[in-house]
């Protein structure tokens, strides 16, 4: 269908005034602007490798796995992050916490292996949003390099070491404020939801009162 000419609005270039049509004043005006930048020189660039950029603390860079107060990995291997991850780059193998070890008394599971493919990751931060115990967090390390693809598969040890490196820096505050593990770990105060997946009968979440269970 042809466009109704009434609907067309032609944008005309504005008429040039006398000085504009002589070109030169505009040229001198431009020269004045550029000349001022030369005369009053304040570079906005940084000497990059020597001078690191001052990134905001919500910058999303390399991941870390936080430690809890006992120095264990905080992750409870709930797979939330792996489920949320749009790039499917988190690979977790969970392991039951040893039942008779008092050291692990407050945990059901922990990750036996936890691998993030940093090359596949799109640094969207969904994993951090999803994690119920604030275990996985994105730091503002951005200059990640490696000699091989294998090197860029960050395993648990590497992710924990990133935590050790960054926890004290002003830009990467540990963002957990509640409970030993995080707000989700306050089992007594929280309404637990019914297990979304099948869990073994001795798992605490199987026994907990939850919104889906009518007593």
């Amino acid at each position, binding site marked *: 269908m*042809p*466009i*109704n*000419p009434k609907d*067309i609005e*032609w944008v*005309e*270039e504005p*008429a*040039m*005034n*006398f*000085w504009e*049509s*002589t070109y*030169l004043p505009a*040229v001198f005006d*431009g*020269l004045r*602007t*550029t*000349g001022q*930048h*030369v005369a009053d*020189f*304040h*570079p*906005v*660039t940084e*000497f990059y490798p020597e001078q690191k950029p001052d990134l905001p603390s919500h910058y999303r860079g390399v991941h870390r796995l936080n430690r809890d107060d006992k120095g264990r990995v905080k992750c409870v291997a709930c797979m939330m992050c792996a489920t949320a991850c749009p790039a499917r780059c988190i690979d977790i193998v969970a392991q039951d916490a040893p039942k008779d070890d008092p050291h692990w008394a407050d945990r059901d599971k922990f990750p036996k292996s936890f691998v993030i493919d940093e090359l596949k990751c799109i640094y969207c931060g969904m994993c951090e949003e999803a994690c119920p115990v604030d275990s996985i967090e994105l730091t503002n390390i951005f200059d990640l390099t490696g000699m091989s693809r294998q090197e860029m598969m960050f395993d648990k040890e590497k992710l924990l070491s990133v935590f050790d490196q960054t926890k004290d820096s002003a830009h990467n505050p540990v963002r957990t404020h509640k409970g030993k593990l995080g707000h989700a770990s306050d089992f007594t105060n929280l309404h637990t939801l019914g297990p979304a997946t099948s869990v073994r009968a001795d798992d605490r979440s199987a026994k907990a009162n939850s919104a889906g269970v009518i007593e």
Partner: protein
Amino acid sequence: MLEQIINWFPEWARPFIMPMLTIAIVLQVNLGVCSYLILLERKLSAWMQDRIGPNRVGPWGLLQPVADMLKLLLKEDVIPGHVNKFLYVLAPGISVFTTMLAFAVVPFGPVPRNLSATDGQFPYIIAPGVDLGLVFIFAVTSLAVYGIILGGWASNNKYSALGAMRASAQVVSYEIPLGMSVVGLALLTGSMSIEKILLHQADAGILGWNIWFQPLACVIFFAAAMAEAQRLPFDLSECEQELVGGWHTEYSAMKWGLFFLGEYTHVITISFLTSILFFGGWHFPWIAEPDSQYLGSTLVKVLVLLTKSFAFIIVIQMLRWTIPRFRFDQLMGLAWKVLIPLATLNVVCVMIVKQFHLNEWWLLPMSAALFLGAGLIGTQSSRPFARRTSEPVAEAHGHHAHAH
């Protein structure tokens, strides 16, 4: 002392010694200056854009040209398989050759008045006494477009070909205002020799500089010369946004470097010409007069000329980072509708002054009047052509439009 050295040579060789020496000096200095001008341009653009610019090689990046040169020399010299090899290799050579050749008649210092090739005086010009110096320069610099056309054509690449076509159209158009703008100078001086035009101004003092009589010609000359050298805002032939790299898209390594060298030599020539033709060359009141004889006065004159030329080089580089590129129709419009008529009228003004033996100072208000008149015509004339009809689509789709 130089005369004794010359006398060691056999009779037939003597006239060649001084030109050879001068050529060697000019070539070497030109190469060095060009590479540092590139650094200066990069620094200048960085400063304008609030950046720091090259600063890694040597203190303040001063060794950057050396690194660039090494890179260009050591890079693999690719000749693509689809090119016409002979012309492809020839083109950068032509480009450098013609721009260097143009410099032959440009004096770069106080040319001695009674110069003979064998008397041992340093000539400060490669080819002294060329009476048609101006014509020679314009003839040779317009040959430079052959390098561009051949390069673009031989590359067998549509971007290169388009760039080359643009370049040829542009150079042909701007040749005319360029030549016209200096006709007035030739009339005023009564000579086409660049040295004579310079001496004429130097003898007349600072109020005899041609800029006072031919300010409009100076502007036209400068703009047209920049277009001739394919410098921004007139670098339509290599504009990256449309043509990848323009006519040198297929060139790399030192062959590309030669094109670049040619362009910068051209810029240097323009700057020298502008300062010589319009700003008195090496003349400066009190410190560099034609009759100043103090020790080192020659050196001072060379320095004065170099300073003036350097100032113009800076202006050209600043303009590059200040003004956006013209559209091609604007470019052609500027040449044919503005510069050529203005340059012609300017020549007419000079003729009137000469014919009726008026005071030369009449040329200043005349130039101003021409300039203002052009602006006035510009405000009036450009509008109606730009307006569109109210029913543009109805024209395009005849029967559809009538159906509504």
